[in-house]
């Protein structure tokens, strides 16, 4: 044992940091480019969304009487409220963009192929979860744009054959957008979907560490030159 052991080493020894470090931080990776950072960037933005979202729930009120006013309060009266909400608002759009860029990188490099099919499949569910988060979050300010976006979105669900009208009622919590719609969209936005997102992210990232990332494909001509 080392004589000079500080508290960090004390903790590291007990949690098995060496193994974690080897598996995650100092693992071997092929020579890659900046496009390979899109996944981590998406995760970083997701973390920002979690933090700012949790803080926003301190002031936001998911009722038709108060939703709009509570957001006005956040924007005008709460210290740096405009910044926290701004980060969440722009973070949402950026996250959707990043998720698509990440997906395209994986697709064009053929990185979804064996043995990474399951990572890709989990990724498609992550994409859907992110879009669902965007859709449910869009209603929460309860302004004109939110209202009609939800009207359009739920009407799309309504044209699904056979179960459409029922699906729309489940989505809205009734026949029209109202108190129940706002409450359930809020619930999905802050509980169901984030929980699903965390589960999928952990599984997705576990597979990335377990299998390792693929090197950029080598094209036939380059191959001959080499």
């Amino acid at each position: 044992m080392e004589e000079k052991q500080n508290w960090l080493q004390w903790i590291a020894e007990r949690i098995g940091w060496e193994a974690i470090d080897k598996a995650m931080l100092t693992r071997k990776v092929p020579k890659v480019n900046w496009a390979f950072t899109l996944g981590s960037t998406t995760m970083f933005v997701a973390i920002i969304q979690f933090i700012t979202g949790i803080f926003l729930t301190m002031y936001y009120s998911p009722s038709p009487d108060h939703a709009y006013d509570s957001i006005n309060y956040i924007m005008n009266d709460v210290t740096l409220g405009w910044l926290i909400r701004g980060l969440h608002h722009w973070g949402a759009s950026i996250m959707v963009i990043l998720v698509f860029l990440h997906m395209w990188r994986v697709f064009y490099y053929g990185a979804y192929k064996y043995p990474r099919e399951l990572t890709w499949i989990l990724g498609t569910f992550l994409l859907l979860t992110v879009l669902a988060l965007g859709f449910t979050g869009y209603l929460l300010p309860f302004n004109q744009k939110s209202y009609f976006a939800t009207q359009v979105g739920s009407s799309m669900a309504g044209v699904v054959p056979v179960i459409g009208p029922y699906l729309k009622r489940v989505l809205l919590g009734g026949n029209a957008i109202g108190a129940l719609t706002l409450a359930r969209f809020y619930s999905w936005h802050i509980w169901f979907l984030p929980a699903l997102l965390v589960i999928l992210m952990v599984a997705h990232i576990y597979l990335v560490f377990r299998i390792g990332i693929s090197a950029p494909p080598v094209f036939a001509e380059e191959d001959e030159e080499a």
Partner: protein
Amino acid sequence: MHNVKRAHSPEVSRRGFLTGFILWVSAAIGAIITVPALGFFVSPANKISTAEKWIDVGKLADVKIKSPTAVTFNIKIKDGWVTSETAQTVFIVREDEKKYIVLSNQCTHLSCKVAWHPDKNEYICPCHNGIYDMEGGNISGPPPRPLDRYKTKLDNGHVFILVKE
């Protein structure tokens, strides 16, 4: 082992530099989120309303001498994005024809509401048995000080008190 060795040599390895650099940048990013978030968190605590208002609590002549009378009135409170009315009760106490005081009904122990018991000539707090005399002075129980008194003025026979908004 690595760390111990580096602490004694002025040279910083490429790996050591990058590790440190990334940690510092991460800390800076963390601070950019944390500092506004803290301000956001404590925001309402920093908004203390100092506004005061004179409120009419009724005619002095309607209050009997040596008989504390509870008067309830509504005050408007701005509560975040909601402006609501809440009821507040005070006791008007006339000691004689001229002298009168207005007492808060809030116990000075832990803010429960006291009630006047005419049979005992005491204000009694139901929470922890704080007992006050007619002028709000402490008789027994845990309250640390007498009941609070409002600033008052008499206008046209009506009692006005200064209330925080």
